[in-house]
């Protein structure tokens, strides 16, 4: 099974009635058990692309399809804004997707508890989102996406609202979880170190219009990239990506 993004283009009409091309001729494939990271400067269309893949936005042209799958594919999305339902407890949030596809109470209990356990929120099962810290909220968001056991996991800057240290810890945790589930994943981030730390492949987008500038394979083992011995190489990848983006990022800052 793989997910094919074929010739995707997207134009918006902005408030002054001008056409804005957000994405242009985007072509790539996410393979089974592959972790693909999208990076690019602000406003390059990362979220737009992720939303198109997630079925939350129609492309102006081109299409996105799952190859080699029988039923309708299941998607799990983790949003930057987290988007937990404030009126549902952690458990109720996590099993939301299961309820909607008609899982039995017993199944909900089993699967729900399993993933809540996986993200380490067992003690906060019955808490409302307002009672959680930022890090815990994002974990609940991840558990909710995992609980539907999706064919494709989409994540849009899930850790960008967290502080630097919490973020580092959450990245490690995400990798641990990913190693257990091995879901095909499309991950969007601004943070280049994060991209290098997590990705099998990094897709670098440029701005105006959002186009693929380069696709970089990260040839490092999936775990332990923070170790002394890979630090040099990681650093090089990061630098390479930063050089690709820098100019665009500076331009974005001046807008």
């Amino acid at each position, binding site marked *: 099974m793989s997910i094919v993004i074929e010739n995707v283009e997207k134009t918006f009409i902005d408030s002054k009635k001008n056409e804005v091309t957000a994405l242009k001729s985007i072509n790539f494939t996410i393979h089974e058990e592959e972790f693909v990271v999208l990076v690019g400067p602000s406003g390059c269309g990362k979220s737009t692309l992720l939303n198109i893949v997630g079925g*939350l936005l129609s492309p102006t042209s081109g299409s996105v399809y799952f190859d080699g799958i029988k039923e309708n594919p299941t998607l799990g999305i983790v*949003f930057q804004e987290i988007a937990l*339902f404030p009126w549902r407890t952690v458990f109720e949030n996590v099993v939301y*997707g299961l309820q909607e596809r008609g899982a039995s109470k017993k199944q909900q209990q089993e699967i729900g508890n399993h993933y809540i356990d996986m993200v380490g929120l067992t003690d906060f099962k019955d808490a*409302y989102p307002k009672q959680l810290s930022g890090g815990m909220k994002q974990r609940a968001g991840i558990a909710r996406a995992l609980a539907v056991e999706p064919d494709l996991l989409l994540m849009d800057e899930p850790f960008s609202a967290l502080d630097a240290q919490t973020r580092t810890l959450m990245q490690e945790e995400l990798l641990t979880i990913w190693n257990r589930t091995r879901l095909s994943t499309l991950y969007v981030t601004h943070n280049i170190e994060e991209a290098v730390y997590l990705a099998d492949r990094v897709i670098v987008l440029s701005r105006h219009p959002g186009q693929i500038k380069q696709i970089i394979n990260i040839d490092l083992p999936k775990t332990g990239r923070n170790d002394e011995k890979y630090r040099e190489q990681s650093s090089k990848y990061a630098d390479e990506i930063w050089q690709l983006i820098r100019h665009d990022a500076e331009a974005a800052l001046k807008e």
Partner: protein
Amino acid sequence: MEKQKQVITNRVAFLDKKVPFYTSFLGIAGILILWEIVSRIGIVSPLFLPAPSNIVITGWEMLVSGEIYGNLTASLYRIVLGYAIGAAFGILIGLILGFFRVADAIGTPIVYSIYPIPKIALLPLFILWLGIGELSKVTIIALGVFFPVVINTFSGVKSVDPMLVKAAVTFGSNRINVIRKVILPGALPMIFAGLKLAAGTSLLLLVSAEMIAAQEGIGSMVLHYGNLMITSKLMVGVLILSLLGLIFNRALRWLENKLIPWKE
């Protein structure tokens, strides 16, 4: 050269200044005592300003005589019925305007063009249409409640975070479930804001309508004793109305906490 040492001190200390907790009681107690004294020693004639103690005693007598009971039930009947009808329709229409774009496009301009009419101005019209009985008063109250509620419900639906709708759809919700499980709970806080706003308006309309056209009810009782210059009984009426307003508000807040335990 002499050695200089400049100590940094807290320049916003004034923000943390505390006031003894008993000060809060001082204000109200002070006013009541002053009022009592002013009436007692006759600086102001009790005809104009009966002493608080006098008001309480009069109130008790009116309670025992059943006079309050009769007027209060008449008023309660009107406001409870009017409020319930207005709130129910307000929420319903507000949800419809919020969900359906066509309803929104057609209905919202109509709602907003009727909204600025001070509703009490329609009382004479309703008396013509529905007679001088209960129906016209209940309708006026319902109408006064309807508008803030419908507008708040509508805004509530519109202000539900679209991210949550997207999340629900992503996790497999159909449109009915999006409405039931996301938009309805998401709009609840705004709906309650509307209900609270409407509470004050409904009480105002009740009293006005009773003064303009009723023989019974706390409002007409207040006017009646105003006409008769029995100020202490007038004040009892005012006191009851303010208690009514207080209870109304508290009840709504209690309900809100029950229904929206997740609210920050």
